[in-house]
């Protein structure tokens, strides 16, 4: 019998004595009071290594990828300690009460009880709106974008640059100085981070350095302390380095972007690669019934038709009826997902270009209680956006310029010069993302990569609102910070894979 055999197999498996003893010792150490950096932390897997300072300066260096099984800890200069978010167990009433109690304590200890800084939220919100319009309009293809991932990546870039390079980034983000950016972004990270076992908004960042170059510790410490970012040193330009970076991203994004990470390639003279990932999952507050799905027509912007699987539901909810669009929302365990359907004679781009779109979308007073009939296509779409043009449109140009790029806070440019190498210039700037919607919930992942080698007042009708998303539409995953979306997507074709 299978179950008997499986039971016998498991009964033969025990944790090694060494593992038990190490675990008990670690628990004993944890029980003793110790000076902590933050009130809440989990065991860090930090391995602090001395930076390899050997500098060769030889172009075309061919690294030896070595062999054997790789462990990312082997490359770690420092790894962050994430907050220990309480786990939600719905075993019984007491378990739920316990969870809410732990959650209150968690929020108190991370300073989340106070209202988030409205001015800083407005800056991030403005940045999100501006960059969404720049990145999501244009060709009629699916485009998915995470403003939060891009914001964090740019903030990290600001920490590693100086002079005009840093100043341009600060101005583009609307922040007066690096201290304000650092404090605000740290608070934003803590406000957004969530992982209770039922829903998740997991943020992660890392900086990858060339083990043959000389770097300063201060920005690495700042990134670790304030951005929950890990730092790693690898032999750039080798298959081993590329695989290590891809592995790190794959873990953070649950292997959902392997099509993109498999193409990560560094060069022997790559001086830095900076990554900011975001993973979001939310189950619908009320799941769709798969038995009610239908196969229906979705009409693309160019008028061509595809057949897609549509999920259906009718509910008492709220709707926003504008001159150019109708919007509805669906709730998940942790946030709200907005769907914006342009009117039949309006394009998605025209809606995205409306100045008041975001303000109206996040202002609940403009919404009306209605019965909403949903026809929502299931989809699993991906996009890969180049960011350099957008960064330049925001005024971030120096980091891309060989004569003006300033990475001096991070890398010893005098040491580079002594070896005949030029200071690094940003030449990689893109974001890959994926969005899945099905009967149970919605999942979105993204990573931003930055790298440098030595960038409607018509009166609303009194009738049921029909959200039949059978033509291109916008989807917005909101966050607990008002005006700051986690993800914005334009779905032109739900059947594209």
């Amino acid at each position, binding site marked *: 019998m299978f179950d008997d055999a499986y039971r016998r197999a498991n009964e033969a498996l025990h944790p090694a004595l060494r593992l038990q003893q190490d675990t008990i010792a670690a628990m004993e150490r944890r*029980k003793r009071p110790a000076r902590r950096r933050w009130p809440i932390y989990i065991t860090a897997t930090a391995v602090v290594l001395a930076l390899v300072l050997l500098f060769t300066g030889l172009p075309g260096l061919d690294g030896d990828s070595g062999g054997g*099984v790789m462990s990312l800890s082997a490359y770690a200069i420092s790894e962050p300690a994430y907050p220990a978010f309480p786990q939600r167990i719905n075993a019984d009433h007491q378990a739920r009460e316990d969870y809410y109690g732990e959650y209150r304590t968690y929020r108190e200890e991370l300073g989340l009880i106070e209202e988030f800084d409205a001015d800083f939220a407005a800056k991030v919100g403005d940045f999100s709106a501006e960059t969404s319009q720049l990145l999501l309009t244009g060709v009629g293809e699916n485009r998915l974008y995470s403003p939060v991932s891009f914001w964090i990546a740019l903030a990290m870039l600001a920490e590693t640059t100086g002079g005009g390079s840093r100043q341009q980034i600060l101005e583009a983000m609307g922040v007066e100085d690096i201290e304000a950016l650092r404090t605000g972004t740290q608070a934003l990270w803590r406000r957004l981070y969530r992982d209770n076992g039922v829903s998740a908004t*997991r943020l992660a960042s890392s900086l990858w350095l060339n083990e043959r170059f000389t770097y300063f510790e201060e920005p690495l410490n700042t990134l670790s302390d304030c951005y929950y970012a890990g730092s790693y040193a690898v032999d750039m330009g080798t298959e081993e380095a590329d695989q290590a970076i891809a592995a790190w991203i794959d873990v953070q994004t649950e292997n959902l972007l392997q099509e993109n990470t498999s193409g990560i390639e560094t060069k022997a003279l790559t001086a830095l690669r900076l990554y900011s990932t975001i993973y979001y999952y939310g189950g619908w507050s009320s799941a769709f019934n798969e038995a009610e799905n239908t196969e229906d027509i979705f009409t693309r912007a160019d008028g061509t038709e595809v057949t897609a699987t549509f999920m259906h539901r009718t509910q008492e909810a709220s709707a926003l009826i504008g001159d150019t669009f109708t919007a509805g929302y669906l709730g998940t365990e942790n946030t709200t997902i907005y769907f914006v359907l342009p009117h039949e004679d309006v394009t998605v781009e025209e809606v995205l270009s409306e100045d008041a779109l975001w303000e109206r979308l996040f202002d609940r007073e403009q919404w009306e209680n209605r019965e909403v009939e949903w026809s929502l296509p299931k989809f699993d779409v991906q996009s890969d956006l180049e960011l350099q043009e957008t960064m330049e449109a925001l005024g971030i140009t120096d980091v891309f310029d060989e004569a003006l790029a300033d990475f001096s806070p991070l890398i010893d440019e005098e040491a580079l010069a002594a070896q005949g190498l030029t200071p690094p210039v940003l030449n990689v700037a893109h974001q890959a993302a994926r969005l899945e919607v099905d009967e149970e919930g919605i999942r979105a992942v993204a990573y931003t990569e930055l790298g440098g080698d030595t960038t409607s007042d018509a009166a609303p009708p009194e009738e049921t609102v029909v959200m039949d998303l059978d033509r291109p539409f916008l989807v917005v995953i909101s966050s607990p910070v008002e005006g700051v979306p986690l993800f914005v997507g334009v779905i032109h074709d739900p059947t594209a894979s």
Partner: protein
Amino acid sequence: MADPRATVEQYGDMVWRLSLARTASVHDAEDVFQEVFLRYLRHQDHLNGAEHIRAWLIRCTVNCSKSLLTAPWRRRTVALEEALAAPMDEEARAVYAAVLSLPQIYRTAIHLYYYEGLSVAEIAQATGCREGTVKSRLSRGRALLKGVLHDV
């Protein structure tokens, strides 16, 4: 506050076996094992009774094995050899190897149902899925195992 040694002795086997089923790697299971008990230390004051602790540990083990840093190109055969180094009869070894060969979501459902004896509802709570999803994963897991074994 419970004694760490007593806690590890009481729940260590359960956490280890689930960690191994989830990760299919002795090295990764060791990381999960230690992480789970360190998290338990922080939450134990909120847990009442053996059943509550057990449910919490199962949930925590499932979650910790999701966010583990690991190298995806690590060969599955290495993990199987390490896990199967333990002494067990041939039938048990074959069944265990077959379960470890399943995708993670099916391994988890199979282990929690057939070894931990959890109900579908309990598995749904532990893994954060709907009961329908658990049922389909059990069904699919059994179907995949039938391709390898003949008495599931």
